[in-house]
């Protein structure tokens, strides 16, 4: 295959990764933005989403689409409930102290991971996609002046579905934050939790909601990706690393920056992985983070601390 079609193929793979990464990282960014909590366990909520999706798909079992739709509802709910319980039982008790919550979420990470190992096992298990038609993509041959279908240039309907659903969910998230009372409450808490309380906003309940919502977003991302990647109890590491990279580059707490950075990192990760190796993609992403921390510590869209 020529370079052009190959690049298109790599870009499509990158777009799928970017879509899922954007959902995962927005959850992490929301939690940090509102609660000032660096949630090291975020990747485990992603893993919970994938594992629950496997359980639901296996239990429902009649048709892959039915199991998938059920997983889209159940997995985020389960992740949110576990996250809210973690918030009430652990984070609230350490008064959301920034340093203590890092240690606490590391503990939550190990508890969830080992619970998954005991309950789900060490195997990687596939979840059948609800549909998966092969779509051949055309390419324009400039020399011959005509469109043709290069061998191997194609994607699947499910991958395009993942991109579309992620875009819809992100638009929905944006609408929630900017157009609803719940979003207004979350933004007020993010900007000044002290004054939010002075206007009747129950900040500790907002924190629980936000922590649960962030986990639900990660779980949703995992449900979308699990028909492509398989569910495994250690699968939370990579999305956690990439989400931190994205959130730092985008600007801590900036949702807009997170989405832009997710597209940049997700696309470059996909393209470099196809042309070179996934390891090189991670090395380059980490180097970009280092450069951002040196030259623009507040991130691309973050604001400087006063």
């Amino acid at each position, binding site marked *: 295959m020529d370079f052009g079609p190959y690049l298109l193929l790599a870009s499509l793979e990158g777009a799928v990764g970017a879509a899922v990464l954007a959902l995962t990282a927005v959850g992490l960014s929301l939690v940090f933005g509102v609660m000032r909590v660096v949630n090291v366990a975020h990747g485990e909520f992603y893993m919970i989403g994938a594992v629950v999706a496997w359980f639901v798909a296996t239990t429902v079992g009649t048709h892959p689409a039915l199991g998938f739709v059920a997983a889209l509802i159940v997995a985020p709910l389960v992740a949110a409930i576990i996250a809210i319980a973690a918030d009430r039982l652990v984070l609230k008790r350490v008064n959301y102290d920034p340093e203590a919550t890092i240690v606490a979420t590391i503990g939550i990470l190990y508890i969830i991971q080992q619970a998954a190992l005991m309950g789900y096992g060490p195997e990687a298990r596939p979840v059948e996609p609800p549909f998966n038609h092969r779509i051949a993509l055309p390419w324009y041959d400039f020399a011959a002046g005509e469109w043709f279908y290069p061998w191997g240039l194609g994607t699947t309907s499910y991958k395009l579905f993942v991109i579309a659903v992620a875009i819809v969910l992100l638009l929905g998230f944006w609408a929630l934050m900017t157009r609803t*009372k719940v979003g*207004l*409450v979350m*933004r*007020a808490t993010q*900007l*000044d939790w*002290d*004054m*939010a*309380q*002075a*206007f*009747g*906003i*129950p*900040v*500790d309940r907002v924190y629980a909601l936000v922590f649960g919502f962030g986990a639900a977003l990660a779980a949703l991302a995992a449900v979308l990706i699990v028909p492509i990647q398989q569910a495994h109890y250690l699968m939370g590491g990579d999305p956690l690393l990439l989400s931190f990279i994205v959130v730092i580059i985008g600007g801590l707490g900036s949702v807009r920056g997170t989405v832009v950075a997710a597209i940049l990192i997700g696309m470059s990760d996909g393209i470099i992985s196809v042309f070179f190796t996934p390891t090189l993609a991670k090395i380059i992403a980490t180097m970009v983070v280092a450069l951002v921390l040196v030259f623009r510590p507040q991130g691309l869209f973050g604001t400087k601390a006063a």
Partner: protein
Amino acid sequence: MLRLEKVSAGYGPVQVLYDLDLEAKPGEILCLLGRNGAGKTTTMRAIMGLCDRTNGRVMLGGTDISALPAHEAPRQGIGYIPQGRRLFTEMTVAENIEIGLMTRKKGKATRERVLDMFPRLRERLDQRAETLSGGEQQMLATARALCLEPSVLLLDEPTEGLQPSMIQLIRDAVVTMKDQGVAVVLVEQRLDAVLSIADRVAFIENGHGREVVDAEVLRTDTSLLEKYVGV
């Protein structure tokens, strides 16, 4: 009526207030005076539950609100305009007002009434709060607190850094609230403003409540001002 009974409060290990007693009656303006660091702002924050109360009670009517979480104070009818305004600066004027209406079930009439008091805000509803002038920001902070339809209004240096016309506007709003039966607790550095508006003045010194006198007394006898404020 708002009553503080032997309230001690501070921030973590630092105690600022010691057994403070205070009372603000409906339809009066009670001014808190004292030197910098005396504990005036902490008194406000202690009433709101925004600092650590270690002792005593804050009674609103017959309810002990010090036993309730901080977000219950505005729900019980206490409006707070903090020092420096503390607006949600990245939000629009309309959103800041919406936050003020958060505890109201049907806030539309309240919103209209408040915007009628500050027509300039109505013209700037879609403008971000951080882009407003200092005076407009103070109007918004006042409007946001009035949206709570408070029975007690706490104002912490509301005229700080404002031009005279704005000071007059804020003053008129405070007097209107007082005339409507609201108990107003005011912290203010400008003594002329205090003496022209206050009904009673409470002196705070090093976190201790000292004397509470009618403002009328201070208009003729300035010895207490010299003693507690140093002027």
